[in-house]
């Protein structure tokens, strides 16, 4: 009987522990080992946090790029087929066909390193060494005229790199610049005199089609 009561008390204590507000009170999960964190902790920030030891030159990067990247991105980063263009595009952002490349658009070089390291080459992600990622990043920066051809990128030289478009980014300001979209009483009757059709999807006609054309407006 007393043994039963002890078990009941113990169960109550477990329940209380489970509802506590202090950190870790559920007691679920286990502490991550340092080598486990190291295996997955691949992210790199603009301030350089997360950059691994290593180095790579523009020249080394060019060789790797031609072997592993050019098939999609073109030998000069101009893009093959509809795969992304990586270089050029300066001065196009206000125009009708903005070309958003590393040099013309991206605000931070860390993004290049981070993205190559985590996701490239497409279909063989995380197969590159840290030195190869440094070299590829250096090569892409040189193709975008951000660094010279003899540049060597490392954790130490990383902070010297600035991308030209960084200053053009600003925080979401819709609640002020689009304040007119908050309206007390949108018009319900006689809101306009005339209505004209000014554009039609069928003129462009790029809608995917059934084999029997059943989706097409003709």
């Amino acid at each position: 009987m007393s043994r039963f009561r002890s078990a009941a008390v113990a169960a109550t204590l477990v329940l209380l522990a489970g509802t506590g507000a202090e950190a870790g009170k559920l007691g679920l999960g286990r502490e991550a080992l340092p080598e486990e964190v190291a295996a997955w902790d691949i992210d790199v920030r603009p301030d350089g946090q997360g950059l691994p030891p290593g180095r790579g030159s523009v020249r080394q990067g060019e060789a790797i790029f031609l072997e592993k990247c050019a098939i999609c991105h073109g030998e000069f980063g101009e893009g093959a087929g509809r795969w992304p263009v990586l270089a050029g595009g300066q001065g196009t952002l206000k125009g009708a066909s903005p070309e958003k490349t590393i040099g013309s658009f991206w605000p931070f070089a860390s993004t290049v390193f981070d993205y190559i390291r985590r996701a490239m080459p497409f279909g063989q992600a995380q197969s590159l060494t840290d030195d190869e990622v440094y070299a590829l990043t250096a090569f892409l920066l040189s193709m975008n005229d951000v660094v010279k051809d003899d540049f060597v990128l490392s954790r130490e030289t990383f902070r010297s790199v600035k991308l030209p478009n960084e200053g053009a980014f600003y925080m979401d300001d819709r609640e002020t610049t689009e304040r007119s979209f908050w309206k007390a009483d949108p018009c319900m009757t006689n809101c306009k005199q005339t209505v004209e059709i000014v554009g039609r999807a069928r003129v462009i006609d790029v809608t995917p089609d059934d084999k029997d054309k059943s989706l097409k407006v003709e």
Partner: protein
Amino acid sequence: MSEGATKGMSRRGLLAGLGAGAVAAGAAGAARAGGTPDPAIVEKQDWQQFLGDGVASRPYGKPSRYEAHVVKRDVEWLTAGRESSVNFTPLHELDGIITPNGLCFERHHAGIAEIDPAKHRLMINGLVEKPLVFTMDDIRRMPRTNRIHFLECAANSGMEWRGAQLNGCQFTHGMIHNVMYTGVPLKVLLDEAGLRPAARWIMVEGGDASAMNRSIPIEKALDDCLIAFKMNGEALRPEQGYPLRIVVPGWEGNMWVKWLRRIEVGDQPWHAREETSKYTDLLADGRSRRFTWIMDAKSVVTNPSPQAPLRFRGPNVLTGIAWSGRGAIKRVDVTLDGGRNWRPARLDGPVLPRSVARFYVDFDWQGEEMLVQSRAVDDTGYVQPTKAELRAVRGVNSIYHNNGIQTWLVRGNGETENVEIS
């Protein structure tokens, strides 16, 4: 209608039939009224005479074979390959507010990861008291909650910035779905690891071959984000992040990282590729807004629409969906005359914050040409803008967050087309 008839009937054929008088009162209906017995009644059908499949034949179930046309579709020219691409929910075939799991649009960056849940781990590291690793069993033992939310790709309607381009709300508005998620509040997990005082941001990262990563401010993470493992009651579909994804209510779909394997806590945002080269809004002056996370109020009429023409004169049901990442839908107005006059639509079913709401307008149609629009209003007072109002502020280079009012032209024969009006 037999399967063969459905399959063989092209839309052109259907419309030709309508033009020949079927619209007037319905040819078949008229015949019945005239006294010719309906073969669907007087002839015995196979299914009323012979035994159907037994209970063991469809252990997970599937839609009727006559619904085979209700599928996600993709637009091949949009992307360089299929593994990093998108498909679209057939909104015009659905009703209510819940999207069936099999029809939820997909966006992948390295294809569908097929993950063994027994080998899946979630790691929390960075500015925490104790870096932790959780198994799926650990996560399923934590206090959980159920929430209905929409997930909309920031690029939904992005192909329409420069003008009407695609005939079908599936393509213009189909990068959205709305399901009930079951999961653990992210706060529970972060509390378990213990946030350090400097914690201001988290980075969520996927376990697929794109290792998708996004930064989320800590306030949002602690407010209403979920770590979800079920959708509409069943396990997440592999294409939706099985076994684990993050739910970021009201915010752009790209942040809802699938196949979630790691959360790092930090004091700064990461400026990952998806929040610098993508998902930033390039405005006409050449500058760009970043961290435009919230999806503004938006709506679309799903029926009639180009893939769902009007087929009958007389009583008809107009329907569509509305949603807002800022809160709950308060009202939806509908116009049939291109915005000269509007009427409030009837909201029906649950109207929840950061969830799709369903609206209806019951109307009588006698073959007149109509210009149909819907306009959503949310409980912050935000009114869905016209495309012209949006372009006046944002230009046309924006790609993302196009929540402008959509116009469908319904012609006299019921055929419906994506147009823009003055």
